Each structure stands twice: as C-alpha cells, then as structure tokens.
C-alpha cells in the first residue's frame, strides 16, 4: 500500500481505483476509534512501568506504612521469652519515649555538631578544588581530575579501613609523622575521633562534590570571564563574583545531600567501634542506636519509633537549610 500511495496523490491520474478508495476510509475512520487506539497504546506503554510500580509499592511504600504502624505498638514477651509474645497498642507512647530519650538526643547532638563542621568544610574544599581545576589548563585538569576522583571510586568501607590503619599507632605512618612534628596524637581518643572520621569522610566525599561543581563550572559561558578580565577583574575576583554564583544551585544540592547523609552516619563509626569500643559506644550515632535497639536489644517497635523521629529531624534540617538558602537569594 505504501508503494502505491504516491501514485494516488499525483494529480490527473485516474488509475488505482481500489487503493484510492482504501486510503480515504483509513484516514476518515471515526475519531472515537482512533481515540481508543491511542488509549490502548498508552495503556500498553503504561504497563511497562507496572513491574517498577508493584515492586516500589511493596519494598518502599509498604515499609513506610509499616514504620508508622510498628511505632504505635509494643511487643512484650510473657514468661521467660518462650511464651507467646503479646502485641499491644500503645498509641504514641513509643514516639513520646523516643522524643524524651536522652541517649538518643545526645547521639543526635554529637552528630549535629559533627555535621555542622564537616558539611561546610566538605563543600568549601570541593568548591575550591573545582575552582582550581577550572583555572588550570584543560590538559592538566583532565590529568588531575582522575587522581582527585580516585577516592570516590574506593568503596566506603575500604576507605574507612585504610584510614583506620593510617591512624593506627602500630601500622600507620600518621602517628610517626606527627611525632616528627613533636605532636603525640591519638586518633582514636574521645577528643579526636570525630576529627578522624571527618577527615576520612571528607577524603571520600570531595571527589564526587568536585565533579558536580566542576561540571556546573564548565557550563558557564566563557565570554563572561573574558569580559570581566577586560574590565580588569582579578582571577580570584572572577572566581568569587562570577563562578561561585553560577554554581550556587549545584552547591545547594550537594550540601543538601551531604546533610541528609551525614545525619544518618553509620558505617564509619561502626568500623571505628571495632577498634575503639570504649570511645565509640553502641549508641554513638542515632542510626547506630536504631541498629542496636532493633537487632541487639530486639525492640523493633522502639527502633521504628526512633527511626521516625530521626526521619523528622532530617526532614526539618533539610527544610531549614533550603529555606535559609532561598531567603538569602531574594
């Protein structure tokens, strides 16, 4: 049919009576049928998203609903743990207990103080790194970018272990290095442990943040820099007054991700705990406390209530940060 179609369009030809009739009927089919055909098409297309929708509902939506449900019940085993355990509805008791739990809030406070230092430092170092990389010649930048990205490619657990060894007085060179400077540093002491963790988190995070910021810098039109240079602006001035405002959106995003991740810190202190259990207690961070409550103590309901409180705190922190950054703009 498609081969004969051009023939029918030619003016003056009266041949192909059958094909000439077949085409118009196809085009002039009632609009309702065409509509239904489109709907079928869209339905079939929509069905491609069903496996995801079903799995997402089961593994993401159901757990959140369960979290809200679990947190209003409590489970008490009768007898010596062999008897039937009794589940009772306690309303907001678990949540109230979580909100009033001093151990939880001291963990929260610890992580909050840590975050308030580590998040800005990470952003500043990453931004500085991206700016320096952007100022370098393209060929040099490409070479250094790989080196600067290497930590990002290292699994977080391996990164933590490597730094634990570097800090360790037995095998690590860092203790000897500071010894040469006349400093006796115990990286695992109570005062230092957050600095030690912060340093390794910084080490692992700056590559990723730099990549995003560097990508944003690359999309700044270079004519602007030239214009600024012609006007006599120094490189530092250009970086501060043009480049930084341009990557602001990316900076807000990386900071937000950084806040959300930092408040839930778990793996790094867990690994440090296996080296210095006396400094890093089992309830050292909120997530560690949740893990401990759920899987060591076995109080699933209370652990869930704590998770809900932590989620609220993370949400509030993100919202406050977002509002704050939006207000300074306007």
């Amino acid at each position: 049919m498609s081969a004969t179609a051009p023939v029918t369009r030619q003016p003056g030809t009266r041949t192909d009576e059958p094909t000439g009739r077949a085409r118009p009927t196809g085009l002039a089919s009632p609009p309702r049928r065409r509509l239904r055909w489109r709907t079928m098409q869209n339905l079939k297309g929509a069905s491609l998203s069903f496996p995801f929708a079903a799995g997402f509902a089961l593994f993401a939506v159901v757990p959140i609903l369960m979290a809200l449900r679990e947190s209003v019940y409590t489970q008490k085993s009768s007898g010596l743990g062999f008897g039937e355990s009794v589940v009772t509805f306690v309303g907001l008791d678990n949540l109230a207990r979580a909100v009033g739990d001093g151990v939880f809030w001291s963990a929260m406070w610890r992580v909050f103080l840590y975050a308030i230092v580590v998040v800005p430092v990470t952003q500043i170092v990453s931004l500085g790194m991206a700016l320096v990389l952007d100022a370098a010649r393209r060929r040099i930048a490409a070479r250094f970018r790989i080196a600067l990205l290497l930590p990002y490619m290292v699994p977080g657990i391996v990164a933590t272990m490597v730094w634990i060894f570097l800090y360790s007085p037995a095998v690590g060179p860092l203790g000897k290095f500071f010894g040469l400077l006349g400093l006796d540093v115990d990286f695992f002491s109570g005062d230092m442990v957050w600095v030690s963790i912060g340093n390794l988190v910084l080490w692992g995070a700056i590559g990723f943040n730099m990549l995003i910021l560097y990508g944003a810098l690359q999309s700044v039109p270079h004519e602007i820099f030239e214009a600024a240079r012609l006007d006599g602006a120094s490189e530092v001035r250009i970086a501060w007054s043009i480049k930084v405002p341009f990557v602001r959106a990316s900076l807000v995003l990386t900071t937000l991700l950084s806040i959300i991740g930092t408040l839930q810190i778990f793996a790094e202190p867990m690994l440090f705990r296996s080296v210095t259990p006396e400094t890093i207690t089992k309830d050292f961070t909120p997530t560690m406390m949740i893990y401990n409550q759920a899987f060591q103590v076995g109080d699933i309901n209370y652990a869930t209530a704590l998770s809900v409180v932590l989620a609220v705190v993370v949400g509030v922190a993100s919202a406050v940060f977002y509002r704050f950054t939006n207000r300074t703009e306007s």
Partner: protein
Amino acid sequence: MTSVLPETTRLSVRGRAARRANAEREIAAATGTSRWVVLGVLVLLAGYAVGPLWWLVVASTKSKQHLYTTNGLWFADFNLWHNLQALFTYQNAIFGRWLWNTVLYSGLGSLGMTIIALAAGYALAKYQYRGRGLTMGFIIASFLIPGTLMLVPSFVLLTNLGMYDTIWAMILPGMFSSFSVYLAKVYAEGAVPTELMEAARIDGAGEYRIFFGMSLRLMTTAGATIFLLHFVGSWNTFMWPLVFLKGAEKWPVMLGLYSWLQRGVSTEVDVTSLVITGSLVSTIPMVILMIAMQRYWRSGVTIGSLK
C-alpha cells in the same frame, strides 16, 4: 555533555580571536605566577587523594613483620603473592566465596534493576496515562526519605516474606530504584524520538515490540549508566547485608572484611595483613570499572544533580 561544551566555546572563542588576543596580553602577567600556584595546589590535593591508596598498595606487598617495622610509604620486601595466597586460602578460602557473592548480588540485582528501571522510565517519558503524575510524585518524594527510616520496617517485611538470610534479601528490594527510574526517564526523553516510534507503529509494530526491539537499543547508554551506578553501589553496600545476612558463607566482601577487622589482632592469627590485601583486591575491580566507564557514570552524576 562535557565533551560537547568545550568544543562550542572554543569555536566561539576562535571567532573573536582579535579580542581574545587583547585579553590574553592583559592577563599574561597574572597567569604567570598564578599558574604555578594552581599547579601547586593541585599537586597537594592529588597527594591527599592518592596518598592513602598508595599506602594500601605498598602495605599489601609487605610481609607481616615488615608491615609493622618498615616505612609505611615505601616498599620493603615484595610479598604480594604470598599475601594473596594467604588471603584466598584463609578460613577454607572464604574470601573467594565473598567475592563471588558480591559479584552475584551486584550483578543479578543491577541487571534486573536496569531492565525494570528502563521500562518504567521509558513509560513515564513516552506515554500519557492516568497514574503517571502520581508515580512521578512518589519517585521524587522517595528521594527525600532517609534510608534509615526504611531499615527496620524492611527487616520486618522481608522476615515475613521469608527472605531473611537469603540471597533474595540482597537482590529483590534493590531492584526497584526510584533514582534509576528518574535517570532513565530523563534519558528516554532525549534518546527516543517520538517520530521514530510513530514510524514503527505505521510499520505495524506493537508497543512492546517497539520497546524491546527499538527503544531499548536507543537507551543503551542510559542502561549502561544506570547499571554501573547501581553495580558500584551494591558492591559497596554494608548496612543491608549486616542486617539481613546471618551466615558468613552468604556475606558479600565488605561485610566479610568488616568481620575480620572486628576480630583485630586479638586472635592468634594476625588478620591485619589479610584485611589490607583483601581491601586492595576488592577495590581494584571498582577502580578499573569506574575508570573504564567514566563517560557513563559522569553523565549519570551530572544529570542526577543538575536536572
């Protein structure tokens, strides 16, 4: 994306050669010194970034005694092969088992996830249907949910489903990644032209045939990106297997290394050397993969953050 941009700027710059020459003369003095400052800072940063990995490589070539007695940043004897042999034979060769588990969990999980995410992202990008907005809403909302909130209820759910301490706990829940669907949707919008789908329809292809025969092939780059990011993520996962896997023979490599670190130097066999060599062995595949497939994950990171 990044490879296109410099090209265009270079072209526009070449068009204004005269003005540029002027500008260059004016800043020549500044760049002379500042170039060295830039280079110096870059060298320092690169040293900070690479130093710990250098130590890891050096330390894994050392015998146990030299590990404690020699300079950490330079080689002593070359004991790497012996260390590797010790690593892969310790505890009935459980390290090889852990590596295999990691490959299995990350590979199967990421493969399934990639197909599911590509299909869903394609549907969201290319079709109009009821529930589409709702799905997008859920996807965006899930970005804001902290992972910790999901941990304990997921434990209850998977235990009820009989998946606790099975391979399924490691593979199934990760297959439905909203971030990957989001990436797939962004890619599909750009990579699959609607005209091409219409042409395929006129040729009589059904919607499924169009997806599996044509659109999937157009989304290969997206698929590689999504697969890679997820593969690396599951290779590095720690908390999930810690909660869901009891038996050591089911552990992925990160959890196994953690268990060795926990044992520390308290046992008669000093496992420090094993942990160091094991760390190196489990990192090398990631570094090779990431460097080889740079253009994929870099575009993924950029899209995920800028859109």
